[in-house]
Structure formats: C-alpha cells, structure tokens
C-alpha cells in the first residue's frame, strides 16, 4: 500500500517557489500595463459640487481621466454597485458607485480615476484634480448612528440598514422568573483584516477575441467574473478571472465588485488597453473594509448553579457607509451567541446601522468574535456574581456529547437551520484545563504576588459554523505522462490548498502526492465556485475533490479491468500502478490507462507506444467511445452539503498587568481545537497560530480610530498597531477530533478558529488580574489605567 498522506504534516508544495521569490502576486504581473490611481474623498460626508480635471490632463504620460459620467454607456457601470446578499432583514439597502456621483459618504471613497503610463505619473495627475465639496455633518460610531440626529443617507431613516430578531422559547418570562438576573453593556472594537498584500486588479481587453481577461487579488474569482460581466454588459463567457498568488485575504477580498474593479475593467474595455491598479496601504485603510464594531446589551437570568434560564441580547452593529455585502456579519453574531451552551429561551435582535466610515465586510471570524465576546463575558459575569469557578459555570451549561446532533433552533446566515453536528465540549474543557494548568493557577498567582507581579487567567469557548455551502466542485485529469491535474474554482490566500488537496487526491487515486498539481481560482479551469471564506475551503473543495477522485478512479479501474481482463472490483491503484489485488504482477501503470482512455491513434510518446500491448481487444461492433464514456481519464464532481458543519474550541490566556504602567502582557496562550480529523496537522496549527495573533491584535492593539468628522486618524502601519512577533506569545495547542457526519472526509473548517474567542479570553484574563469587570475591547494600557482609577474611587461593582 502507498502511505496515506491525509492526516500527516506533509510539507507545503507551494513553499519552494514562494521562498525563492518566484511567487506571482498581482503586482508582479502586467509590467507593461497602464497604471490607475484614484482621487478619493477627503471628507466623511460631502456633496461633490465640481470636478476640474484640467490640471491632471497636462501631466505628461497621463492617458485618461475618468469621472462618474465616463462610466455611462458601459453596461451598468454607472449604476450603484450591487447588494450582493439580500436578506429579508435589510430594510434600506444603499450601495455606492464605482466613481462617486454627487455625494461622498466616507473618507477614501473614489471620485476620479486617472490612468497613466506609470503609477508615479498617475498619482502626480491625481494630485492635480480639483474637486469642490460642500461638506456635510458626519455620523461616526454606533452611538451617533443610533441617536440618528443626522442621517448618512436620506433614504435610510434612523440610519438603520437592517433590523433582525430571532426568538427561542420565552426569554423574557424565564428571565423574570429566574433567581438571579444580570445586565451587561458591552463594546467591541472596529478592526480590519489588513492582509500584507492589498487589493488589486489587472484587466486587459483582448480586442481580437472580444474578451476581458482579469487577474485579481481575490477570494472569489467566480464572483468577480460574474460581477464584472454584469456591470460591463458582457456575456459571462467573454470574461475570465484568475486569482494569482494572493498575499492574504482574511475576508476583505471577498466583496466584489469593488469600485476600482468596475472602473479599471470598464476603462480597459473601452480603451482596449491593459490597466492595473494596486492598492497602497493608505488606500487599504480608508477604502477597503473594516469589521467588528458593535455595542451589545445582555440580560440574562440564571439559577444558583449558574445555569442560564433565559437570555436576551441586543446588538447594534456599525456597517459603515454602504451595505454591499449584506448582513452576514451581524447575522453570524446573532446566531453564534449560544456557543456551546444549551439555550432554550433566547432572543436576539440586531440593528445594523449606517455611519460615515468605511464599509464593513467579514473579517476572519465574521461576526463570531463578537458573539463569543458577548456570551463569554456573560459567563464570566455570572461566575463572578455567584462567586463560582468560571469553568464550572460553563460546564453546567454545556450541550452534552450525547445530545449531539444539537438543534440550535435558529436559522443561520445561509438560510438553513443550525444543527451542531459533532463535538465534545466537556472533553475539550478538560483538555484545556490540563493544558493551561487551570487548577494550579492560584498557586502561581500567589507566587507572582509575592514577587510584586499581578497576573490573571481567563478562558473563552466558541462554536463556529464552518464549511457553509452551497457547493464547490473539482476537476481531475490524468495526463498520459502520469501528471494529475487537479482544479477547483475555490481560491487560495495562503491556506496551503495546493498541498492539502493534493494529499486528498493522491490518497484516493493511489498516486504519489508529487504527481498531483493543483490549480485554484482560475475561472478558465473551473467556472463554478463560491469562494474561500468562512472556513469552508477544505470542507467544500476537499470533499468535492474526494468525490471527483473516486469518479476518476472508477473510470481508471474500468479501463484497466478491460486491459487486464479482470474484474474492476479486484483492482487497486498503488503508487500510480493499477494492479490485481493479491496478484501484483498483473498490472498496468495509470499513465497507460490514461492513454487507453483516449483512443486517439497517435503515439505521441513512449507511454502511448507501449500502450498498444493492451489494445486490440476491442469489440468491433461498438464505437471506440461507449455511451457512458468520454475521452480522457478525467472527471468532475461537486460537493453540496445539507448544512454547515460546526467546529469548536476553547482558549485560555494568562496575562500579566503591570501595577504601575498598566501594560498588559500575554504570558501564555492555550488553544484546544476541534475541527474533526486534521488533513494536515501542520497546516491546521498554522491556521490556529495566525488566527490567535489576529485575535490578540484585536484584543489589545487594533482599533480604527475615527474622529467625529469621519477622518481615520490611524491609517498607517505606524499608527494602527498590529502585533509584531514580540507581541504574540508562544501558542500552545491541543486537539480533539470529533468527526462530522456531514461529509465523507468528516472534517470541519479551521480557518477562523484562532480568532473567534481571543478578545473574550483576554478580557477574562485581564478582569481576573484586576478584579473589576472589563466591558470594552480592545483594552490599552491607558484605558486599563483609567479603569483602575475609576474602580479605586468607586467600590460598587457594576456586575
């Protein structure tokens, strides 16, 4: 038998190329392309009164200067951008324009596009465009939006974009009757994905073929393709989109079309040119997308053990100036609040609000970090109120393993019922307590105290709907030289898909992993796909490729059976050789099967010539390609699950807070993670590490600071603090593998796991160190210092 590779830490196939500098990211392509630069709004809210482009035109090397009017006549490029994911809760959908028409609603909104021979010249010219504005008062932050003294859009009264509620049982009645009731107000940051590579698009018009060819740094090449075809009035078949190497996504590269996509592609088409736009860092800050900011109010009733009897949650969500991506984020928050806990009397409402700030689209975790924050802060508050161990309060509320599958009783963002497919929360908690040394912490605290140090421990749990549908597909073809070409339409941004998918196919087909070559995110190879988001890559495309490999194997065995005059059931494929089980001498190499699969009589190569030994047994009365056959050893299949899988996990953090400076250091960070069987543990761990680092950023450093006029005050890496290596602790991990019954691989997604409970776990630890409640994250040393002062003078505990 060849060695199975699924389940082992196979080194990544993409790496040797990337470490040599041979990656091909968006800006590495199209050196002969024209460059686009954008004139962007300096105002949070304003009327555009006049645009004078005459100065720009004078710059040598400038090729075109476009405003909104120039988009007219190209499909629907001048119309507002689409609302991608309509949902019944959306009362007032407002989306922006590719280039602003009359009004701007956030700083950074594109107004004019300049195309020049290089980016330096395009920026020179952009600087010389004169735009006159009539500034309008801006609405910034949830509180201002909720107060609605001013409106972001006239057409959205109360600044409300969407309102949603879901009810389970009788939350209000149960709370009123409960022995204990608590209310909490919570606040969570506005952060951002911040991939190291920004967005970008390279579009070229092929006049001879009448086709638009686009490379884009995207998480969904099929989505971008459909969006561009629709916006530019082109048949879908005339547009192809390819995602080259992508330098990170984390959600922000899913929302297409971006204004720049439409403007650049429309200009490429109209000018019959090749045009590239590469976002710079400032542009990424002020014109891409952010996430996370919410205000939350919780009311919870519980018994003496801390068992929750009823809970009501209200969420106010800041979705920025427009709503192109719908309400996935607050919907995820709403439906993930129950987490691993039995919740039978629960109600949640969210109000999604317009503000004069950059749009909000999913960022790693997509609304779930806020849900975990709400629930886990509540658990800690209950424990504090009852003076109980925080892990015990959680334990009494856990859904038990024998209760799986657990019907959450709520409809998820994909419109389907949420049902937890697998998991063992008590076992996970045991592992976590063991890993972090929960029981021994008091000794450590005492020891630290004796040294004048202040430490605290915290924890947080979560479940995460992963592997959402509706489908992904795969295509596999075996070449006559033994090369196995694998494609899936799903894109990749560093998750190691080329390796993991090769592992799955190699195992199933019985070939060496080295012979398998994976292509992702190229609409020419696979035109149907959804995209890479929501921890769905491995679950969706992994299973699609497994099914495809089975199909191809079946074809291979059928053909080989004919050639070997054997029964297909008696055959196996080992290391690329089809052989009769138990009689390995009777064999035919898979490449030769590929030759036989295509009865074309050209002997291109040695394999083809050699294959003639297996020919000559054909039935003269039948055509060479039978009814159910196709030429070539290849096949395609799709995987479409009935519902989403649920991964879960628990984190614990140990922090130290400086008694004088209030500086917060994460001393230890422990993760117990359950995504079902791990296809490649090394890659899963890497995903957890990266997620935790982003979570720690969100908990302690990352906050997008807007002033009251809608100016983003920290739009650079100097000012927006992301963790460097020195801010991220060594992450200790352990795994529980409860297989999912919902797909043949039994796997659940792992991409966002690291990020979801991090703010909650750190808040819990800081609270434990300080002895007063933490209700607002991220928390900085000055804020902690202020809280200390406040609690020193005020001895009444608000929890």
């Amino acid at each position, binding site marked *: 038998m060849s060695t199975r590779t699924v389940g082992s830490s196979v080194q990544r196939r993409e790496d040797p190329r990337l470490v040599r500098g041979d990656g091909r990211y968006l800006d590495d392509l199209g050196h002969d392309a024209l460059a686009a630069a954008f004139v962007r709004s300096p105002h949070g809210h304003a009327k555009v009164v006049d645009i004078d482009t*005459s100065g720009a035109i004078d710059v040598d090397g400038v090729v075109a200067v476009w405003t909104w009017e120039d988009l007219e006549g190209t499909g629907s490029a001048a119309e507002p951008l689409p609302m991608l994911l309509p949902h019944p809760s959306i009362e007032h959908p407002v989306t922006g324009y590719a280039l602003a028409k009359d009004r701007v609603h956030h700083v950074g909104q594109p107004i004019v596009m300049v195309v020049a021979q290089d980016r330096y010249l395009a920026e020179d010219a952009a600087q010389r465009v004169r735009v006159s504005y009539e500034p309008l008062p801006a609405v910034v932050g949830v509180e201002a939006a909720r107060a609605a003294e001013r409106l972001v859009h006239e057409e959205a009264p109360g600044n409300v974009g969407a309102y949603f509620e879901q009810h389970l049982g009788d939350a209000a009645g149960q709370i009123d009757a409960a022995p204990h009731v608590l209310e909490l107000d919570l606040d969570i940051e506005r952060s951002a994905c911040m991939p190291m590579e920004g967005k970008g698009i390279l579009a070229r018009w092929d006049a001879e073929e009448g086709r638009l060819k686009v490379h884009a740094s995207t998480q969904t090449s099929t989505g971008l393709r459909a969006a561009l075809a629709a916006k530019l009035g082109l048949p879908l078949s005339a547009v192809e989109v390819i995602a080259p190497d992508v330098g990170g996504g984390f959600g922000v590269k899913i929302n297409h079309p971006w204004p720049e996509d439409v403007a650049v592609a429309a200009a490429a088409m109209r000018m019959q040119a090749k045009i590239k736009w590469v976002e710079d860092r400032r542009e990424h800050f002020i014109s891409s997308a952010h996430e996370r900011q919410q205000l939350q109010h919780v009311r919870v009733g519980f018994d003496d053990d801390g068992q929750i009897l009823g809970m009501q949650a209200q969420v106010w969500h800041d979705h920025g100036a427009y709503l192109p991506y719908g309400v996935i984020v607050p919907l995820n928050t709403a439906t993930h609040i129950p987490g691993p806990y039995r919740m039978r009397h629960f109600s949640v409402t969210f109000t999604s609000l317009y503000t004069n700030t950059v749009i909000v689209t999913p960022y790693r975790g997509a609304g779930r970090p806020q849900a975990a924050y709400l629930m886990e802060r509540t658990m800690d508050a209950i424990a504090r109120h009852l003076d109980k161990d925080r892990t015990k309060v959680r334990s009494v509320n856990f859904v038990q393993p024998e209760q799986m599958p657990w019907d959450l009783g709520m409809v998820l963002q994909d419109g389907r019922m949420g049902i937890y497919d697998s998991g063992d929360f008590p076992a996970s908690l045991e592992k976590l307590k063991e890993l972090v040394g929960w029981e021994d912490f008091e000794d450590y605290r005492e020891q630290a105290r004796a040294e004048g140090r202040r430490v605290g421990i915290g924890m947080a749990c979560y479940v995460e709907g992963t592997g959402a549908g509706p489908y992904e597909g795969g295509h596999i073809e075996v070449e006559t030289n033994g090369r196995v070409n694998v494609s899936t339409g799903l894109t990749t941004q560093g998750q190691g898909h080329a390796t993991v998918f090769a592992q799955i196919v190699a195992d199933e087909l019985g070939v060496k992993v080295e012979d398998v070559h994976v292509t992702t995110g190229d609409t020419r190879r696979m035109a149907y796909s959804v995209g890479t988001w929501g921890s769905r890559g491995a679950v969706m495309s992994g299973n699609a490729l497994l099914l495809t490999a089975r199909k191809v194997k079946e074809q291979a065995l059928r053909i080989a059976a004919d050639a070997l005059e054997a029964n297909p059931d008696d055959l196996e494929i080992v290391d690329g050789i089809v052989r009769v089980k138990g009689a390995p001498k009777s064999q035919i190499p898979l490449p030769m099967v590929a030759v036989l699969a295509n009865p074309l009589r050209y002997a291109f190569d040695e394999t083809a010539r050699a294959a003639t030994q297996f020919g000559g047994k054909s039935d003269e009365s039948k055509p060479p390609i039978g009814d159910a056959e196709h030429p070539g050893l290849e096949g395609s299949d799709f995987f479409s699950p009935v519902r989403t899988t649920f991964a879960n996990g628990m984190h614990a953090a140990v922090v130290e807070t400086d008694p004088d400076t209030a500086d917060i250091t994460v001393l230890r960070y422990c993760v117990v993670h359950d995504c079902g069987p791990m296809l490649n543990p090394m890659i899963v761990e890497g995903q957890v590490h990266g997620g935790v680092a982003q979570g720690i950023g969100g908990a302690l450093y990352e906050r997008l600071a807007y002033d009251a006029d809608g100016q983003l005050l920290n739009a650079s*890496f100097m000012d927006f603090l992301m963790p460097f290596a020195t801010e991220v602790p060594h992450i200790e991990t352990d795994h529980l593998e409860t297989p999912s019954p919902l797909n043949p691989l039994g796997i659940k997604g792992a991409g966002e796991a690291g990020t979801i409970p991090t703010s909650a776990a750190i808040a819990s630890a800081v609270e434990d160190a300080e002895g007063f409640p933490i209700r607002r994250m991220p928390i900085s040393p000055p804020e902690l210092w202020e809280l200390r002062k406040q609690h020193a003078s005020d001895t009444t505990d608000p929890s």
Partner: protein
Amino acid sequence: MSSTPDAQQPEPKSVRGTIVTTVPRASFDPAGGAAQPEELLDVYLRVNGAEQHIRVPGRRLLSDALRHDLGLTGTHVGCEHGVCGACTVLLDGQPARACLMFAATAQGHQITTVEGLSTPDGELGPVQQAFVECHGLQCGFCTPGFLTTITAYLDENPDPTPEEAREAIGGNLCRCTGYQNIVKAVCRAAELRRGEQAPPDGTQTPAAPTERQEQR
C-alpha cells in the same frame, strides 16, 4: 464633469471623450522610458552579484526599481512607509527597507534580494529551507523580507535562542503565521547553517527540526 479631450491627439475609435493621449505605453526597458519628462538618471546597481544598469527618475524607489525595472518581483511592498519589512533587502549584507530608499541611493552598494538567497545551482539557502520545513509561511507575501532579515541576523548570531530569534524578527510584520513557525524556522536555519559548516566530506546530515519550546 468629465475632462475634454486634447484636440491635438487623435481619438481612437472606441473611446469617448476621456482619453487624453494615446501615446503608446513607454516600456520599462531602461532605454525606452523616454515618454517621461522627468530627468532620468543612469543608475548602476549590483544586485545578487550581477551588474545592472537602469535609467530612472531620481524619485524612483529602490523597491520599484527592483520589482518593475529589473523584474525581481520577489521583493514585496506591503506598506511603502517603512514599517512592515516586506521590502527588506540586504545592502552590503545589512537589512534595508527598499521602500524607503531611492534606487539612485543604492548605487555603489551590493544588493541581495530574496532571489539571491538560493545557491547558484538553485538549491534553497538554509533560511529558505528552514521556512519550508517549519511551515514558516502561509501566503508568502511577507516572507522575502523575513528571509533577508534572518539571513543577516544569523551572520551576526549563528546560534540564537528562541527568545533571541523572536526578537530578531520583531521588525517585520506577518499577518498570516502568528510568527511561531517563523521563530522555529530561525532556529532551524541556524542548525542547517551549522550543518553546512560541518566537515567538507558532507557526511553530517542536518538535525531534525527543533522541537524546543520557547519559555516566555
């Protein structure tokens, strides 16, 4: 609102009034950049051991010159303001941010980019090899900057502790890996380098990847 076309320029058929000029794109070929009015400088760069000549404006950044004029796209640009380290190259062996330097300023210095870290016959260098072994990269965008930085660091400190390794990479941003495996890769690269310095008979095989846990 739209701009008016320059009357002197013929308008290509499918284009409305927004095209200002239809001068064909000047190529980035150093000799062909003449469409720009700016004064061009002759800049001689020594990159990865090879002498290169480009003709670029004085304001051309070293990062852009490497990437776009010389086609060495391995050096990446993540911020263009000197914070992320993605553009780090070695200047006479010392890490330098190519986005904070003009190409002209780099004249007379030895520049090493990520493309220059492999051996002449294409074998991965020790730091590159260590990154592959330790899963030190995910999207790979930040990676060239880490590889160059670590290469220089290990010249200075050939046997770092995990804590020192973490400190050494503390000036580069990575948004994917959470740094843990990069720290591991620094230690592993040090091992690989020591293996290379082993007796020339080449019998010594590199040790297994370090499993040492950091104590923080």
